[in-house]
């Protein structure tokens, strides 16, 4: 899971297009899997596998947009590069709004396609990394006691210890102890570190106010 090879999932009802695109990806040294329909892909869908989709917009059965929705419903992180036979603005806007990585018109040049795929990979990789980081932070947050959590929220809110102690009905010294424990549990060396981690986890940035 740390460094798996990303896969390009090719989905097009046209077998010759599928074959041609496959060859192109192979020539670029990319790993790919080809499917001639959305359903075929969904049956083999692995939400954890890295990579991206190169998806034909117009297909019988589930079309490109419908598959995009289906994948979103399944919390897929795979970026989608749409391919379309004709530039339909309304469709492309809809696709992009729903988080499409790119929208390319057939016939697409190899440079553009490969670049789009690489961008999608990058996006996928970043996304995956962010998700892993958040999971780590939340794991650490889970180790905090209820009092420690309260102290964390006040600290991230930028209040001095004295105010926190007053708010929590205790003495400043106690707060200091909690604060040191929070710093330790959250693996934060500085206050700025702690604020960043808390923000990533969605704590403190206005939510507390």
């Amino acid at each position, binding site marked *: 899971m740390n460094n798996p090879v990303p896969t390009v999932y090719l989905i097009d009802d046209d077998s010759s*297009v599928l*074959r041609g695109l496959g*060859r192109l990806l192979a*020539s670029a040294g990319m790993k790919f899997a080809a499917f001639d329909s959305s359903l075929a892909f969904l049956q083999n869908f692995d939400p954890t596998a890295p990579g991206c989709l190169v998806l034909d917009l117009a297909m019988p059965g589930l079309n490109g947009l419908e598959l995009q929705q289906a994948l979103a419903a399944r919390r897929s992180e795979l970026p989608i590069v749409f*391919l*379309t*036979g004709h530039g339909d603005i309304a469709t492309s806007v809809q696709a992009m709004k729903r988080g499409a990585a790119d929208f390319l018109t*057939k016939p697409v040049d190899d440079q553009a396609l490969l670049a789009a795929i690489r961008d999608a990979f990058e996006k996928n990789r970043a996304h995956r990394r962010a998700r892993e980081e958040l999971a780590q932070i939340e794991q650490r947050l889970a180790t905090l006691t209820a009092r420690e959590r309260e102290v964390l929220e006040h600290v991230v809110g930028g209040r001095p210890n004295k105010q926190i102690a007053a708010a929590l009905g205790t003495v400043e010294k106690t707060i200091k102890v909690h604060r040191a424990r929070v710093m330790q549990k959250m693996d934060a060396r500085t206050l700025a570190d702690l604020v960043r981690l808390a923000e990533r986890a969605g704590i403190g940035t206005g939510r507390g106010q």
Partner: protein
Amino acid sequence: MIAAACLTLAFMQLSIWARDRTRLAHLLFAVLALTVIGMAALEVQMMHAQTIEAFAKAQRWIHVPIFGAVVAMVWFVRSFLGTGRLWLAYTVCALRLLSLIVNFSSGVSLNYREITGLRQIELWGESIAVADGVFNPWTRLGQLSLLLLAAYLADAALAAWRRGDDEGRRSAAIGGGSLALFVLAAGTHYGLVLEGVLTPPYLVAPIFLFIVLAMAYELGGDVLRAERFYRQLQLGNAQLRESEERFRNMADTAPVMIWLAGTDKLCTFFNRTWLAFTGRTMNEELGNGWTQGIHPEDFDRCLRIYGEAFDARRDFTMEYRLRRHDGEYRCILDSGAPRFAAEGTFLGYIGSAFDATDLKQAEQRMRLVVEAAPSAIVMVNGEGRIVLLNAQAEKLFGYTREELLGRSAEVLVPESLRAGHTGHFHDYFQAPSTRALSTGRDFLARCKDGSEVPVEVGLNPIDMPEGMCALASVIDLTGRRRAEAEAALQRDELLHLSRVAMLGELSGSLAHEVNQPLMAILSNAQAALRFLARDPGNSDRIRHILEDIAEDDKRAGEVIRRLRALLMKKQIRYRALEINEVVLDVLGVLRHDLSNRGVAARTELAADLPAVNGDPVQLQQVLLNLIMNGCDAMNGALADRRLTLRTALSADGEIQVSVTDRGRGIPPADMERIFEPFVSTKAEGMGLGLSICRTIVTAHRGQLWAVNNADRGASFHFTVPAERGPSDEQPGADRISD
């Protein structure tokens, strides 16, 4: 006694001749009578001669009156009977003349060469002298002349007998026949006396007296006849007066105006109708009085025609304006003809006239109507000559009226059609009827400048007084043809535009159809380049790629071909084609659109269908329309979006194509209305699709209709007749108009 009788007769006849010099017969009779007197006198001298000399002298001189008598007789007969052979007449006269010459030049006389003595003989108590002497052979000449004379007279009498009526026959018998007998008798007697067979005296004169009497009887008959004729003439005059009265009565009651003119051009009579018309009296009109009523402008011309015709004794017809009793000038049609008496004497003119104003007005109206007719009108007589045409005809053909009148109608027919036209024309007058000459094919007319104009010709037979004529009304079709061509062009344009519009709706799918193979080609080609750069040795892989590229290229080409056929503005061309191929072609175009719309198209195509005769692009257009309509009808349906395309051979040999959807169906009220133009059940439909489809199918001699399915959706069916063979008539492009 003889002399006295003859003298009386001679004077009578001479007096008749003197009064009427043309009566030559009477003169000749007088001459004959006088010669008989001469003969009688000389004969008396001969009978009473005391010396040979005296006898000889009298006998010599007696031949002079005989000559005269013969000549007179010959020409009397010719003049009186009008018959007799001329050569015989001349021969007789010549012989007699010769006898006379011989008489005075040889011997004592024609009869005696020499007289030897005289002797006295007793006759009827008187002593008369008889000569004895040598007979002169020349006497035979005289006898021959008399014989010929008798023959001449007999011949003339016979000819007159054969020719004549009763009167003529009697004249011939008495005049000619008796004369011949008497001449013969005289000649014979004279000859016998000379021969000494008979005793004298010479009885020439008495016999001639009989001749004279016979002739006198005849001529006297003539006088009697003249008298009778005179009486008849008097009776005739009375009758003539009566017939003139009748003529006047008739003329006065005649509905036409009648006039008479004498030989001096002056008018002598006008009937009551004329006088009632002019309101003037006979005396005012007589002579040149009637000319006062002629319109001043017509006066000179009218009198010129009258005078010229009169001098030439010709019939004439003239038209002039004559003042009526109410002062109005009316158009008069006046015809005159010379009158001649039975024997050919010119008597003057008779004429009739009538008021032709109304007739002229009717004629004028008719001419105006013909002139104002919107189509060109040409009237052709039985000989094929143009006898009438109007201004439109002048304009259409480019000829002036004068150039066409009297010419053969063939000048208006193009040379290429002339042979047929002459035949048609002949046939037409065999069975004239009202009909169109140019049924079916275009008929061309030839103009003066040689150009040919499409025309429609209607023929009407007209029974004119001068014979059967054909009235042809000719309509120039140039404008109509142009309008038709323009309409056809606009129709083609509309079909094309609706096709383009339909393909415009499909543009997304169609672009996809083309771009799919292009995508594959590009990917393959670029992949190949990369493979080559990395691993040039692997030719197998490259070969596969190139094969795919070629395949995809063909696919793209096929898509473009189909689109091109639909987008191109081609002339409609009917040909034999397989309807199943048309269906599959359309599905090829729509495949992507159908899948895009989630519509599953199914085909049930009958095998071994006969070919249809049609335009593939137009039939594709119909199918495109029906399929897209079917898809639209299923837009709202969530499932079971099925479209079935079916082809089948119907019972009556037509090929039926059906498009069945599973959509909303058609409200029964709209079942027929949907085929009308600009009727649409769709929000953004123009409403032309189905109306165009029906137009196309009708042009293919087929039918298009719709039915709702028993369970769900609707079915559209159309038929196209199967092609039966090359002889089958091609449906014309013009049929789209119905």
